[in-house]
């Protein structure tokens, strides 16, 4: 090599090593994925074409519950109003149609990569946080994309995702649950992007689903506008599904591939499975070989903060409304200039902690001085007129928090109304609570409002001089019509109660915050169990279903079946319409199954033996505690027999 040629090569090498500015750029492990990438459409044409037939689950490690869930799938479910604009979820999205755009969010000062955004044709902006933030607590809402954090391992981006809404793995009913977590390993090799996904679902998969997908860079394309409007796609108002034994899945899969392969399962994911089938083998193969760090995902899930029995957790919802977790039933709290309004009060024994929490919240939210935004002597917003409003704001001490003005009860249950008495009184033990209160007598006790059946239940005699609940807990006002509106705005918004007859009990109310756009659902909705149907207190399965449908009538998603109106369940995590639709579908499907078994003349024991809830037991079932799966089936059976 001549000297003439060597010099420019050395110069180029030096320039590459040291920036011209001489400021010294940090050495980066990261790979830049920015740009629009197109799917390699022939690679997964089965998923990307007009759609797979029903019943073909080959390559998906479904367990028995997952198979039952998939077999019940009627594809008209996609025409439900709540699902027409539903986006593909993160685990499915990589194999869907359409391009994907990556772009980096960079701190303008520190130049740190704070997040990587991933957008798809028909989906939401998916954010992968790169700033080291933890995953949210268990009670945080789930989304179709989930909550993702990323770290670099060399040039590979490793993404951990939790809080995913349950959705489909294949467009024929094969699904993953709300409890699934996902790891992704994303690599760039020039203009080729490789994504390896490992999805772990303890409910519907017998082992993690591992898929790899390729994309290629396209410098001359862009994502297009993709509107979606909900309309009446299906005339039927039923929740579409096939009953066990009436499913069309087996019929469809037969003749397509060997039926044993179509049933899916871990063995069907192996390359050597075809050979094993020919040799007469079945589901006897060794477990998949997993990457050493693939188990990170479940451990992340296990590490998420969980509700504890002796601590109240606060989750800001939206507008004026906060969700309090840990008091028994969830509590919705409206905090603002008018004081505090609570929907439910939790258990009696947690009332002091609830009070302490909401008063501290009120101090920080509504009573603390805020930076003055109106400067000048004649500032029209200034209450001080001639004085300096900004100085007054700075020297002011926090105003005492205003007290609880209203408690609205969603039912008479002790874990929802047990704290009524304590929380409706002005606290006197200020040393215990550690905050300052208005002098006793300045503000009246809170008004407690519920449907009249709640008062009837709580004041019912259960023995000599004894009532079902202490009189201090009883509603001070009750209503008996289909709805009840607070007579005036509270914290700047209207608050409306809807009576839901014969649902969880005979006294259930939904509470709708009309400006904050939040619904407190009480025990009509709970994400931690099957619906509790209290037959002795006038509850019914169909009433719960009506209540869930009412929530969906009132609620409006922000975009693509997500966000918008938020729903605080009686127990469990914060929800939106997509979650309520998933739960409503589950209740309707199980209702239909039990109803069909009753029509066949089956006894309760025979219905239990038929396991009509088997596919959902991993999500909502229990063999211990107060509300077991057996108790739910019994209540549903008796309710439907009436």
């Amino acid at each position, binding site marked *: 090599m001549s000297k003439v040629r060597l010099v420019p090569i050395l110069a180029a090498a030096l320039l590459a090593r040291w920036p011209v500015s001489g400021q010294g750029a940090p050495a980066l492990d990261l790979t830049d994925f920015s740009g629009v990438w197109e799917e390699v*459409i022939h690679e997964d044409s089965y998923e*990307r*074409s*007009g*759609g*797979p*037939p*029903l019943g073909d689950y080959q390559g998906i490690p479904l367990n028995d519950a997952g198979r039952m869930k998939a077999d019940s*799938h*009627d*594809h*008209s479910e*996609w*025409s439900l109003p709540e699902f027409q604009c539903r986006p593909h979820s993160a685990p499915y999205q990589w194999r869907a*149609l*359409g391009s994907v755009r990556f772009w980096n969010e960079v701190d303008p000062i520190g130049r740190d990569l704070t997040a990587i955004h991933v957008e798809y*044709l*028909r989906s939401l902006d998916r954010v992968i946080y790169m700033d080291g933030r933890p995953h949210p607590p268990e009670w945080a809402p789930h989304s179709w994309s989930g909550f993702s954090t990323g770290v670099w391992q060399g040039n590979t981006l490793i993404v951990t995702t939790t809080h995913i809404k349950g959705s489909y793995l294949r*467009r*024929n*009913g094969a699904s993953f649950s709300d409890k699934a977590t996902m790891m992704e390993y994303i690599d760039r090799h020039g203009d080729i992007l490789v994504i390896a996904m490992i999805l772990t679902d303890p409910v519907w998969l017998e082992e993690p689903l591992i898929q790899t997908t390729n994309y290629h860079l396209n410098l001359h394309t862009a994502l297009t506008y*993709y*509107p*979606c*409007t909900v*309309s*009446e*796609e*299906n*005339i*039927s108002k*039923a929740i*579409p599904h096939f009953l066990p034994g009436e499913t*069309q899945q087996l019929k469809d899969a037969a003749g397509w591939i060997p039926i044993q392969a179509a049933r899916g399962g871990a063995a069907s994911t192996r390359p050597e499975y075809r050979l094993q089938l020919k040799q007469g083998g079945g589901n006897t193969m060794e477990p998949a070989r997993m990457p050493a760090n693939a188990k990170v995902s479940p451990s992340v899930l296990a590490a998420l903060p969980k509700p504890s029995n002796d601590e109240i957790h606060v989750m800001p919802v939206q507008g004026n409304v906060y969700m309090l977790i840990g008091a028994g039933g969830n509590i919705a709290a409206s905090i603002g200039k008018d004081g505090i309004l609570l929907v439910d009060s939790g258990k009696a024994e947690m009332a002091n902690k609830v009070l302490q929490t909401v008063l501290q919240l009120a101090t920080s939210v509504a009573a603390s001085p805020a930076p003055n935004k109106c400067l000048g002597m004649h500032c029209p917003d200034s209450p001080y007129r001639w004085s300096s409003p900004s100085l007054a704001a700075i020297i002011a001490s926090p105003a005492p928090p205003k007290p609880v003005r209203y408690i609205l009860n969603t039912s008479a249950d002790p874990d929802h109304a047990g704290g009524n008495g304590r929380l409706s009184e002005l606290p006197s033990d200020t040393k215990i609570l550690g905050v300052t209160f208005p002098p006793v007598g300045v503000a009246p006790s809170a008004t407690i409002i519920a449907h009249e059946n709640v008062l009837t239940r709580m004041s019912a005699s259960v023995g000599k001089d004894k009532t079902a609940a202490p009189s201090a807990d009883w509603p001070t006002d009750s209503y008996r019509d289909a709805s009840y509106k607070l007579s005036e705005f509270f914290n700047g918004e209207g608050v409306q109660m809807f009576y839901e007859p014969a649902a969880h009990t005979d006294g259930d109310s939904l509470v709708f915050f009309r400006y904050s756009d939040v619904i407190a659902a009480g025990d009509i909705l709970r994400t931690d169990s099957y619906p509790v149907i209290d037959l002795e207190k006038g509850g019914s399965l169909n009433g719960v279903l009506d209540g869930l449908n009412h929530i969906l009538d009132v609620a409006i998603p922000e975009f693509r079946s997500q966000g918008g109106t938020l729903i605080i369940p009686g127990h469990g995590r914060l929800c939106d319409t997509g979650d309520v639709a998933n739960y409503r579908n589950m209740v309707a499907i199980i209702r239909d199954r039990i109803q069909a078994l009753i029509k066949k003349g089956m006894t309760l024991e025979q219905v239990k033996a038929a396991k009509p809830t088997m596919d959902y037991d991993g999500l909502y079932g229990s063999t211990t505690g107060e509300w077991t799966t057996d108790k739910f089936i019994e209540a549903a059976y008796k309710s439907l027999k009436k």
Partner: protein
Amino acid sequence: MRRRFLVGAAASVFGLAAAAFAHHSLAATYESDKEVKLDGKIAEILLRNPHSFLQIDAPDETGAMQRWSLEWRSSGQLGQQGIKRDTLKIGDEVEITMNPSRTAADHRGALKTLHRKSDGFGWGTRPGETID
């Protein structure tokens, strides 16, 4: 040979473009090996993404009048085939064929062919006039 290749290539490109708007799985929703004929009046026209819908009032096999929901191509794809918002009108008398829903009680189907009685306007018989 050359001509066949071009036709194949064009069909392939067209197929990809169509598939780019596919939403749910048609194979999973409808009975692709069954065909049902209906004779009725257009009641509603919903031109939209990812699929359009026509609703017609027509009798079922027992003679009872029903509202039927017929899935069609996306509004963009229909526009490329010359079908605009004023091509069909409410009350038009039409004969249609469809692949019926797997759940008969749903009264829905995937539109195969449409024929308007008043002027013979039709859809579903020319190349590309399919939903996918």
